């Protein structure tokens, strides 16, 4: 079932937690709400769930498919909600937790206890916890508790599944596992899901589309690929990954910053360029386009790549470059080595944070 939001805003007292938001989520989509803390993403999710009410505005609307749920109580919205800290009923067994939603249905529509039992067991099978049915939440690990809470949320076959930082409290490995498992489950059962996260990797890996938020505003809605390649503004760009800054003055097509020089093709004036770590090449000699001497200060191999920290007098903050293991060996990188950085690509956001007018982004290769 699709979700459509129209002009949803929220104030807490005098502070605006959410500027009027419009958002369309297609049926069967898995969408991530990504933003730093305080960006309003959880508030938005809770408003969709009905746990929070949006500011009363004449045209504020929340639609699930064709169903207008704007003024519907949470319990009538038919949503599944997964909480960051699971919120399992601590005095009930795993079985009773999952069965809860079915057992509180009005007597007329409630399934028989036999049906409930078989349905709960199917759900527990799905989350691979059938052998834990009679344990209490406190006897389970974090990952297991979150799986129970997912099974509980799915027990009523909701139209919409909402997840509030579902993996935030878990360690990295379990998080990876659950992420993949949720993606799998989503594809299999084909419900519409919306999840909140502050982890860009999680958002980019899991979502069909990502909604990037900051300061109660939606900055960009796009597929992970588009988002990474064409960030609409500086905030999105910086939030989605590590960034190196290069600030200098351009004269006659050359940007100068201390003793670093880079050939560019824009007009004279002050400029700031942003560079991703993987868009930097390291070489033993400068190129005609770039003369940027750097010193290696730290090397750490992380997974498939090697992270190299660079320093130079002309930098404000140290840079980070990621190089392949092959390059690492070819260059025989050691700490204290003096090299040259060759940017392959850079980004600039000239119309910086002007709230009025269009924010323009330019990416130069």
């Amino acid at each position: 079932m699709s979700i459509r939001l129209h002009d949803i805003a929220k104030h807490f007292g005098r502070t605006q937690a959410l500027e009027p938001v419009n958002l369309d989520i297609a049926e069967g989509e898995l969408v991530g709400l990504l933003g730093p803390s305080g960006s309003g993403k959880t508030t938005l999710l809770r408003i969709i769930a009905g746990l929070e009410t949006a500011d009363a505005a004449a045209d504020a609307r929340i639609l699930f498919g064709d169903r207008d749920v704007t003024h519907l109580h949470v319990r009538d919205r038919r949503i599944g909600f997964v909480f960051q800290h699971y919120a399992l009923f601590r005095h009930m067994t795993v079985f009773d937790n999952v069965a809860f939603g079915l057992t509180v249905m009005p007597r007329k529509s409630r399934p028989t206890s036999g049906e409930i039992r078989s349905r709960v067991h199917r759900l527990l099978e799905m989350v691979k916890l059938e052998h834990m049915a009679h344990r209490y939440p406190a006897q389970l690990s974090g990952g297991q508790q979150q799986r129970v809470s997912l099974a509980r949320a799915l027990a009523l076959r909701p139209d919409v599944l909402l997840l509030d930082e579902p993996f935030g409290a878990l360690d990295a490995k379990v998080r990876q596992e659950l992420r993949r498992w949720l993606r799998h489950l989503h594809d299999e059962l084909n419900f519409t899901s919306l999840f909140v996260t502050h982890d860009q990797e999680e958002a980019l890996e899991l979502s069909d589309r990502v909604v990037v938020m900051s300061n109660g505003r939606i900055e960009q809605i796009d597929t992970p690929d588009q988002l990474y390649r064409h960030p609409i503004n500086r905030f999105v760009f910086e939030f989605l990954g590590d960034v190196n800054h290069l600030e200098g003055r351009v004269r006659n097509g050359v940007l100068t910053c201390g003793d670093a020089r880079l050939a560019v093709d824009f007009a004279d004036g002050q400029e700031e360029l942003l560079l991703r770590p993987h868009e930097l090449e390291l070489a033993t000699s400068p190129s005609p386009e770039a003369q940027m001497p750097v010193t290696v200060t730290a090397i750490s191999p992380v997974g498939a790549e090697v992270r190299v920290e660079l320093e130079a007098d002309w930098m404000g903050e140290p840079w980070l470059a990621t190089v392949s293991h092959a390059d690492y060996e070819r260059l025989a990188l050691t700490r204290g080595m003096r090299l040259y950085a060759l940017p392959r690509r850079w980004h600039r956001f000239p119309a910086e944070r002007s709230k009025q007018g269009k924010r323009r982004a330019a990416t130069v290769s």
Partner: protein
Amino acid sequence: MQRIGDGVAVRRLLIGAAVVLAALFLLLPLVTIFAQAFARGIDVFWANVTNHYTLAAIQLTLLIAVLTIPVCLVFGVALAWLVTRFRFPGRRILQTLIDIPFAVSPVVAGLVYLLLYGRTGWLGAWLDTHDIQLMFAWPGILLVTIFVTCPFVARELIPLMQAQGSREEEAAVTLGAPGWTIFRRVTLPNIRWALLYGVILTNARAVGEFGAVSVVSGAIRGQTNTLPLHLEQLYQDYNTVGAFASASLLALIALLTLVAKAGLEWRAARREVRA
């Protein structure tokens, strides 16, 4: 490694002091009560306990306790729910107001009720014209007892419910549970031990209350005398055995309360171990 203050001498001194103090101030008086009550034999004790006026006092005391507890229970749960689950202007003031019965002397509370509801009081005059007597009758005793005991349940629940938060209730409501079901199946099981604990404290205080009750009861023997008031009267009449017989009944109730409380705490600890 030895911890600071963990010397053998220090330890013995402190434990010794604690034992001596406990014996002097707790155990000795308790023993005295029973010793005095049985000083002239079981028959005299029994005669005093089954005395018409004593029985009436016991009856009234139990009636007051039985009526007070449900009122305090409902009031305490409703108040704790209100204060911990909602944000509204005046919430903090309300939380402070809960403590008023603890802060004022019970005698003062009794006097205020007397002034308000007595025959010449503001509300009392109206009640009098409608032929309703609150003061110097059991309803008045009930009123002041409720006043004195009403914070216990709320005070037990508020910190617990604050710590537990409302996440489980939110989860229940997203699963479609109606309000009453949420309270019965999610909230209540989570607070039941604190609730019972609050009830035990309420009961102890309701049974033992003297100050406020003495102002509004009028202490009419066989009619408006509660056990503590009766005890005091017997003592004033130089009926020492009778006074201590009543005292032993109150002490017995106190001991039972302590046992119940310890039992609850033991259960709670065991639950934690299991969890």
